[in-house]
């Protein structure tokens, strides 16, 4: 197998990158969920505050994940 064309490398790396981004986001938000559920189990009165904090943190981490996704999409179209 000869070397792939430059475009093929771009598509390949975009695919792998997107997978890694999803992996990172999944792990991060999973840990947030774990912390939120643990906190709610310890102190059910704080459910509302914990839920709000969880949603904000999840949105921020998804923001970072989507940065990576935007780079992958840019790779596909260059």
């Amino acid at each position, binding site marked *: 197998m000869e070397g792939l064309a430059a475009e093929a490398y771009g598509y390949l790396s975009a695919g792998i990158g997107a997978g890694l981004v999803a992996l990172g986001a999944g792990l991060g938000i999973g840990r947030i969920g774990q912390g939120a559920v643990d906190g709610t189990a310890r102190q059910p009165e704080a459910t509302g505050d914990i839920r709000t904090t969880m*949603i*904000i943190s999840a949105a*921020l981490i998804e*923001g970072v994940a*989507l*940065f990576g996704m*935007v780079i992958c999409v840019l790779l596909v179209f260059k």
Partner: protein
Amino acid sequence: MAAAAEGNNEGGGVDILGHILDSNEWHLGPLHIPLPQFELFGIDMSITVHLLMMWIASLFLLVTLITSTKKRGLVPSGFANAIEALVIFLRDDVIVPNVGAKDAPRFMPFLLTAFLFILACNLLGLIPFGATATANINVTATLAICSFIAMIVGGIRHNGFVGYFVGLIPSGLPLWLMPIMIPLEFLGLFTKPFALAVRLFANLTAGHVVIISLISLIFVLNTLAVAPVAVMFALAIYLLEIFVAFVQAYVFTLLSAVFIGMAIHQEH
């Protein structure tokens, strides 16, 4: 979404991007309304779909808010009740804890406008034949620039022009750290609105791409058997998109409030 179902009759490739990018024609199913295109001083000022959607969102907000808060009694009734609840929630839980009670009235108009406008634009994109204006990086970049201006103006007004930039660097640092901290803090000024813009843009665009891809699966695979599964998945993602619309508007407003608060009260 109806537009996505209509235009994907190619068996192999599917024009996903065509349904997300801005265009000069409003696609209403079989009807393609061309929007006026004109140039002003050499700059392309033609009316595009996203611009039209922004106008519709602004018009909707103006009409809804003005007519429902017209009767200014002490106790609001009807829809004004809901709007007052929303405004009080934003003021007491988002703006005042971050900006401080003294400066809150100064920044509330901008932050409330940002929240309601982003929410209206996001939700308009989920209606059939609507397009998401906030899925356009130019729109989100402009909103982030408005946040940036609010940050800088608030900070300079409170701390003085030189005082603001001097206050960017935490006090009590050893001198050899300064060459690292100064460019870092200065760059940090710009990464915050950049993150705001990209977060909003990417979240909205990604949701739409997923919905369009799922529906296009039916056309790409050229079978009808895939339809129930695809539509079920697309429905689930659609509901998630509604949730994301609210959350992203809230997060934009919250982070803008946090950054403005950080710019005003610079004691780290």
